[in-house]
């Protein structure tokens, strides 16, 4: 053919990406490992606490946390029952591994996501740059970045956490942005008029008033992080995802179902706790004059 409609740009992208990953592995391997270790340090400790603690203690804690968040005894009992159900399925150990990964991933998402959301709410330009990145993070299949992540950080929990963050952080960033933008303009203007600094406005007015929205974002992030546990288990993150994966590999539908039920139960527990915490934060809005 004399004229080619599609010049081959796939090949150079492919080779240069591979070269970049190789380059990073060779030259910055130590750096990535140090980063990986710092996440692992946190994760391993958390996991050890969760797994070594008597399940009864954990169950009581879940009940207390639910009550603190919702002030409803009924809900607390239901959440304890959901956790007990996971244990009764024989997946307590795995569930604790998953909870540890989940909490670390959500913690890092909050640490990164809330500030990004705040910057995005303040600058339209930053938002227009950030938005396509967030779209990409949510749509690109996780295996695409799992391959280089596994090469850089090794197989195991750290790339799983990173993949979870990439997938789960965007809703938190978006909802933080939205929450801050939707704070009543006149209230912000009032605090400016009284001479508040930008930090005082942010801390005293914008974040508190955006908190319900931010809590909603944390809730969404948790739900999406749970959706990642099966994929995370594929690169060696263990946990309940592994149970599902084993069921798939062994053609054992029953085992797959057990893992699925445990994931759903975890999702319900995390969802209800964060939802009711978010609702209690807007207690002042419920009363109408």
């Amino acid at each position, binding site marked *: 053919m004399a004229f080619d409609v599609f010049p081959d740009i796939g090949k150079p992208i492919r080779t240069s990406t591979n070269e970049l990953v190789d380059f990073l592995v060779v030259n910055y391997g130590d750096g990535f490992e140090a980063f990986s270790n710092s996440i692992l340090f946190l994760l391993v400790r958390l996991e050890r606490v969760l797994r070594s603690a008597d399940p009864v203690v954990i169950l009581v804690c879940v009940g207390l946390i639910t009550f603190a968040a919702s002030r409803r005894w009924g809900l607390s009992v239901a959440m304890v029952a959901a956790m007990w159900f996971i244990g009764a399925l024989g997946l307590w150990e795995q569930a604790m591994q998953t909870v540890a990964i989940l909490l670390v991933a959500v913690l890092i998402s909050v640490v990164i996501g809330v500030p990004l959301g705040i910057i995005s709410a303040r600058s339209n330009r930053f938002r227009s740059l950030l938005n396509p990145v967030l779209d990409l993070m949510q749509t690109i299949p996780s295996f695409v970045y799992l391959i280089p992540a596994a090469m850089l950080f090794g197989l195991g929990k750290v790339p799983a956490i990173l993949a979870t963050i990439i997938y789960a952080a965007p809703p938190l960033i978006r909802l933080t942005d939205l929450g801050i933008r939707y704070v*009543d303009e*006149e*209230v912000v*203007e*009032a*605090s*400016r*008029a*009284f*001479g*508040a*600094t930008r930090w*005082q406005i942010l801390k*005293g*007015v914008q974040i*508190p*008033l955006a908190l319900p929205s931010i809590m909603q974002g944390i809730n969404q992030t948790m739900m999406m992080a749970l959706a990642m546990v099966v994929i995370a288990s594929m690169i060696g993150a263990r946990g309940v995802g592994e149970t599902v994966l084993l069921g798939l590999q062994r053609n054992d539908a029953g085992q797959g179902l057990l893992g699925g039920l445990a994931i759903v139960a975890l999702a319900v527990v995390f969802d209800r706790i964060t939802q009711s915490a978010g609702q209690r934060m807007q207690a*002042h*809005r419920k*009363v*109408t*004059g």
Partner: protein
Amino acid sequence: MALIEVQNITKIFGSAPKKELAKVKNGMGKEQLLAETGHTLGLNDVSLSIEKGEIFVIMGLSGSGKSTLIRHFNRLIDPTDGHILVDGMDVMGLSNKELEDFRRHRMSMVFQRFGLMPHRTVLKNVAYGLEVQGIARAEREATARKWIETVGLAGFEDQYPSQLSGGMQQRVGLARALATDSDIILMDEAFSALDPLIRSQMQDQLVELHEKLHKTIVFITHDLDEALRIGDKIAILKDGVLSQVGTPPEILLEPADDYVRAFVRDVNRARVLTVGTVMQPPALRITHDNMEKALADMRRNDEDFGYVVEDKEFRGVVTQEALAEEVAKQGETPSLYAFADDSSVVELENTLEEALPATLEADYPVPVVCEDGRLMGVLSSEEMGSALTPPDELENGETEDAANKDASGEPAKADVLKEAS
């Protein structure tokens, strides 16, 4: 020098306001600027002087730029051109840090929709300005409690704003502004969102507080009745340009243009104008006790009435007829001071509404006295009538047309005028 000097403030909204400034300075109007450049002219060359301790009302319809103007005072909005001096200090020249300090200590603000923080209790809302200043909790809450009590909200300290009615919420807003002890308070349509009854209570409370605290208040409103009721001075703004600045009687009696004239037409003038602003000097003052001489004075001046004054103190009115009758009588003539009729008098501070019955009953111009009993002037029913007649009915025809044309160009106006009436 006035406390606040607004000097040639021009504000253009749009993507490149500085570039379009020259066009406005060369006289391009609001519509043309919008059509040619897509920029909105918010304020055009506005200059004002606001004296210490007065309530200065800036009045205009929606879109007139009044809210934009008041936000220049504490630089919530930066002008495209011009300066604002407070105590001779140029607010435009302040750095961020100085500006924060200025807002904390010199000017506080009350907002139309209150601007209260829904997540803070009444007490913490009122203490907000002090909290921003970094004042310790115990001290700022003590101050806040004092002001909550002053505005009549004691007992509501721990409620959230959403638990209060609109009027109560705005009292919280007022207390918050008072708590910082700034000498200037900006009020942006502060009472516009309130029910009419609550609004007039709030107006009374504001005037009362002002008499006690002597703060300088810049008050924005679209309601002329409100402006006339509380304002020491009123500035009327139309399409970003000042139409007139003056005292309430000046605005009512000498409207500067058709726009102001259309505004003042529906005002209840009898309630706003005081006797002092429309009275005339008495035609004949009689300053002695001699009846015959008084009668001679009246005949010589061809006056039917005389106003008897003893040592500057007003004693009463005599008619020529009654005097002639009394002089013609046999026997001892009584003292003129005792003879004069002092039954119908109006006071200088009375509104025309209050003075109306006396004016209509008497068949002579009613004497006007001030507090210490001195005769200040007289008020005839004719003067009363012409003062109560809106200006455009005096000069019929053309002004009516102009006012109508004006109203069609500004749809919001009909509503506002209705509200003002």
